[in-house]
């Protein structure tokens, strides 16, 4: 992103040591499993490890559920398991999309929010909340509880496609124009959202406020296939862009010199990121800083090669989101903190620390 005033972390050296890729993957996946276990077992309604095993055994048809584990099975089956799995998919999707946007914009401070996802989703979600029953009428009745997520998904994707269209001339997407169009569309969406909030009643304002803070409290099984299809799958597809993104580290012209179809790579990166993040916002509201901070952590630990940064961000994002959600439901029992508050509370100081570290650079 030339001329944006944001400069890369120029001084940071790649890590001096490298361990084997297989061992690294095993380590990361092991950590993710531990986080998933912690997410499943801990929390206000604790579940014993024996209860988890018994529930798994029953679910797999291996053994009937013993009487004493009935409560554990209920907690896990109805609430905990879908919630932990949704958190993991959401974390993976947001983190990979963040890493892809940073690679595309050639800037470590980029975020899917730049391409309008969050603002567009928020506008549509607020519109659905405030105008829902009146405006959407029959559709609202048909969609029921899905009205808000469907609206948010459509809004996020629509804003991104609008921005991408505005930034594309004769088949070439200008990354600097993409950023500027993103700023303008974000501002427009923000203003329209403000108008709607102005017209909303008190209950709606409270609903909107909590939605914008993000929560996984509504996670149930029916959402999981949606998340797998629209959050996890695009995130996994983004992993295939590791080589084009590596070439873009040198610059767009240089990436073309290296045989990369740069315009196709840009379009796929924007589209897949927008789908993953829009769906994530639709299912859990606005959860910030994961897409920004997680790729940074991976780069600091393992270097900037996207073949490692993208899958590493998926694993670390999943694990951190599960733990953030665990904190969100454990810190203020019997109430729940919005998970977006937790990620911002941890992510923002960390991010400021990063800025401080590179403060010497111009």
């Amino acid at each position, binding site marked *: 992103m030339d001329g944006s005033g944001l400069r*890369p*972390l*120029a*001084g*940071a*050296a*790649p890590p*001096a040591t490298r361990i084997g890729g297989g061992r690294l993957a095993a380590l990361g996946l092991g950590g993710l499993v531990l986080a998933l276990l912690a997410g499943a077992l801990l929390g206000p309604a604790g579940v014993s490890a024996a209860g988890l095993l018994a529930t798994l055994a029953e679910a797999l048809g291996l053994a009937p559920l013993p009487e004493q584990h009935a409560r554990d099975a209920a907690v896990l089956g109805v609430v905990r398991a879908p919630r932990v799995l949704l958190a993991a998919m959401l974390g993976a999707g947001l983190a990979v999309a963040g890493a892809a946007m940073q*690679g595309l914009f*050639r*800037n*470590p401070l980029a975020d899917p929010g730049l391409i309008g996802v969050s603002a567009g989703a928020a506008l549509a979600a607020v519109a659905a909340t405030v105008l829902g029953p009146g405006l959407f009428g029959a559709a609202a009745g048909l969609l029921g509880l899905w009205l808000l997520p469907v609206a948010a998904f459509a809004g996020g994707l629509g804003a991104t496609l609008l921005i991408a269209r505005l930034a594309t001339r004769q088949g070439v997407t200008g990354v600097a124009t993409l950023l500027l169009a993103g700023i303008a569309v974000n501002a427009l969406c923000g203003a329209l959202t403000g108008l709607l909030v102005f017209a909303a009643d008190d209950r709606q304002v409270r609903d909107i406020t909590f939605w914008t803070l993000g929560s996984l409290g509504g996670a149930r099984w029916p959402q999981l296939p949606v998340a797998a299809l629209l959050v996890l799958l695009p995130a996994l597809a983004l992993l295939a862009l590791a*080589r084009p993104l*590596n*070439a*873009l*580290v*040198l*610059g767009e*012209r*240089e990436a*073309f*010199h*290296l*045989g*990369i*179809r740069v315009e196709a790579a840009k379009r796929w990166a924007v589209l897949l990121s927008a789908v993953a993040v829009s769906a994530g916002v639709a299912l859990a509201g606005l959860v910030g800083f994961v897409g920004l901070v997680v790729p940074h952590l991976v*780069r600091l630990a393992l*270097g*900037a*090669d996207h073949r490692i940064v993208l899958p590493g961000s998926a694993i670390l994002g999943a694990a951190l989101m599960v733990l953030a959600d665990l904190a969100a439901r454990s810190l203020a029992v019997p109430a729940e903190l919005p998970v977006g508050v937790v990620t911002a509370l941890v992510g923002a100081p960390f991010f400021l620390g990063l800025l401080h570290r590179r403060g010497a650079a111009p």
Partner: protein
Amino acid sequence: MLIEGVSLRLGAGEVLAVAGPNGAGKSTLLRALAGELRPMAGVATICSIPAPDWPPRLLARRRAVVSQAVELAFPLAAAEVVALGRLPWHGAGGAARDAAAVAAAMERAGVAHLARRAYATLSGGERQRVQIARALAQIDGAEAPAALLLDEPTASLDAAHRAALLTTLRALAAAGVAVLVVLHDLNEAAFVADRVALLSAGRLAASGPPGVVLRPAALAALYGIPFRGRPGDGLLPDFAAAAASPTHRRR
């Protein structure tokens, strides 16, 4: 910058130096030959490859480009930058073949000792040589004569490294690579090139062997200031004469 009516041949085993005043279209010519720009008329051909019509990946196996002052968006080690040169060969020769190409290219460009250094901590000259190593790794294994295009590669190098780079370019040509190099220093052009092309305002002002093209009178007409000396032997702009006679100032 528009270029028009430029007809040039760059053959295998040849070094072609392109020179001319700022804004003459040197970089545009290089970009057209690299396949970045599609000519509105005519063809840009290197080693008989019509660059814009080839699939980028196949083209990248036959021609590498060294741009000016490449900066990285994210911190990579020098060896990782050179390894990016193997991207077009992904799936073609295997990891061991790629590693060998990277090592050989770094050796040849004189940056083997910098392999683990962060690119961002290297000097301008070291970065330039790492980029040249990246380009060499890229065309290592090309089935037919490869082309190497360099945009002012000596700009940030000291005298010793300039000499080393020009010698490397000659050696590459001797090995069958077609080398096109944009140069500002006409002595370097005279030393390294089999043929020199002089561009002026988007047109080919002259082309041919250095001894024929790089004559002080022709250069004075091209650049608008007097030159003295002989090609390859102290051919220099005569700054003192230019300063003394304001009528020679650039148009």
